[in-house]
């Protein structure tokens, strides 16, 4: 599986979504440096979440003879529902703070897209 390219694309996607949402609150020229620096924590979080949840599922199931398509169809619905539940809980608990909304929205969209990138890779 192309883990590195998946992580790189996920990191870029998460950063773009996060700043599109967070930027609606406040955006200035001085924040460009912050946006570039935010790649670092976003990369760490994306790596931990993707390797710790999505990649593990694909790795374990593909090793046991499942096709990637089967893995996606079997596990993604429950993953998406759980991730959505956590996101909604986090957003409501934070009192609809814009940065928390940006964080959870980018996390949900990025992980969902990461599932598709893993599932659509050509299987050897």
């Amino acid at each position, binding site marked *: 599986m192309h883990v590195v390219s998946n992580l790189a694309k996920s990191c870029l996607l998460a950063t773009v979504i996060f700043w599109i949402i967070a930027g609606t609150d406040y955006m200035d020229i001085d924040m*460009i440096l912050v946006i570039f620096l935010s790649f670092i924590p976003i990369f760490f979080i994306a790596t931990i979440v993707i390797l710790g949840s999505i990649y593990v599922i694909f790795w374990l199931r593909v090793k046991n003879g499942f096709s990637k398509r089967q893995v996606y*169809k*079997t596990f*993604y*619905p*429950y993953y*998406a*529902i759980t991730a*959505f539940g956590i996101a909604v809980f986090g957003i409501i608990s934070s009192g609809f703070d814009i940065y928390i909304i940006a964080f959870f929205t980018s996390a949900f969209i990025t992980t969902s897209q990461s599932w*598709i990138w893993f599932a659509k890779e050509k299987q050897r």
Partner: protein
Amino acid sequence: MKHILIGIAAILFSVLFYEQHIGLNLSIFSLATIAILVFYNPKAFKNRYTIVHAILYIATAIVVFMQHSYLSIIANCVAFFTLVGAVSEDKTSIYVCWLNGLYTSIAGFFHRNFEVDDDVEKVSLKKDIDVIHLTKLIGIPLVFIVVFILLYKNGNPMFNNLVSKISFEFINMQWVLFCVLGYYLFSNISKPIIVESATSADLNTKNELVKPDDVSEEKLKKEKQLGTTLLGLLNLLIVLYIITDIASLIIGEDTSAPTLSSLVHNGIYTLIASIVIAIVIILYFFRGNLNFYSENRTLKNLTFLWIFLNIILIALIAIKNQNYITSFGLTYKRIGVHIYILLTLVGLITTFLKVLNIKNMAFLFRRNTQIAFIVLILMSAINWDQTITVYNLKHANGFDVNYLINLSNRNAILLNDKKDVLNISESDKNRISAKYRTYMITLRQRDWQEWSYENFLIEDDNSNSE
């Protein structure tokens, strides 16, 4: 045309919900949802089951407008997921409808994106218009121009002044993002999808138990003996308990609040434990082959007797709870006890039907979840704050005015109307007046999206008084 309709719905979504509380907007959203579902899935709406769910969804939308309570909002959301799930697959159990509806609403876009065959998609896109190239052609230069404008701003004061005059503040980006969210949601539900593993498993599971070919007579006989002994003894025990309970109800004279409270609550804990264990024991013995054993008559009769005795136990708890309500008034907890009793009764009746008609566990889950859904919708249609207030003021032997004042604002008008004829202190009357005034201000400050039925009521009152 399809995208235009979803686009209009997305703008409507933003108009309805951006920086607004729930009210009339949720009712309008429900109608928009049905319009989108009917437009994109006309075939599904020829099915009676789907039509019934659509009617239920509209009913919950009306209830949200009329009652404006959290329970009605929850019922509306559950009805939404049920309807979307029913459109995706109408032959599944209601809990699978919830799963499919939830999955469609939150991840339909990604699921469809996964299903798309990339090679076919690329060819068809090139035939029409090269969207990706067009996006790159506009997007990439735009991003770089913005970045460079921001950089040049600090280099030249004249350029800075010129750029500073350009203002996009008239565009509310959060409102635009809300539109995107609306587009995502409506696009997701326009083509409902299913969770394949759960849906196929549910469709393949019938309600009836299948008679096995190979049955060990000896093993079944032993299991029947164990079941008969256990249920026989449990029946004796529950009869003894019911006799003592009836005696204590008849003889008992102490009707102080703590005594009644303890009676009801202890009864409820007993009920919870005994009913759950009763159902588990019955399900264990009638999980498979024993249903088809020719000599299971005694065990079945003992099971029916035990279910009947548990129903008597439920009736006793209901009587105690009603006595409690008559003496000390209605509260949410006491209503909750009655609803719990109702649901337990339903659980026992469906267990009885399962044993009688040789059904499986799926039958129990299906029937019980269906009934729970109907109970939720019916309960959401009642203004409980108003009901509690009316009952306590008219019928209860005693009531706690503090409790009534601390309920939500939905009883504010009623309390204010009655405050002068009630035997309560001046400070309580002032608190009721303050609650009423606050509620009136809240009602008048609402935007049209947040309106409820009470907004129209006060409008009528105002026009009558003028």
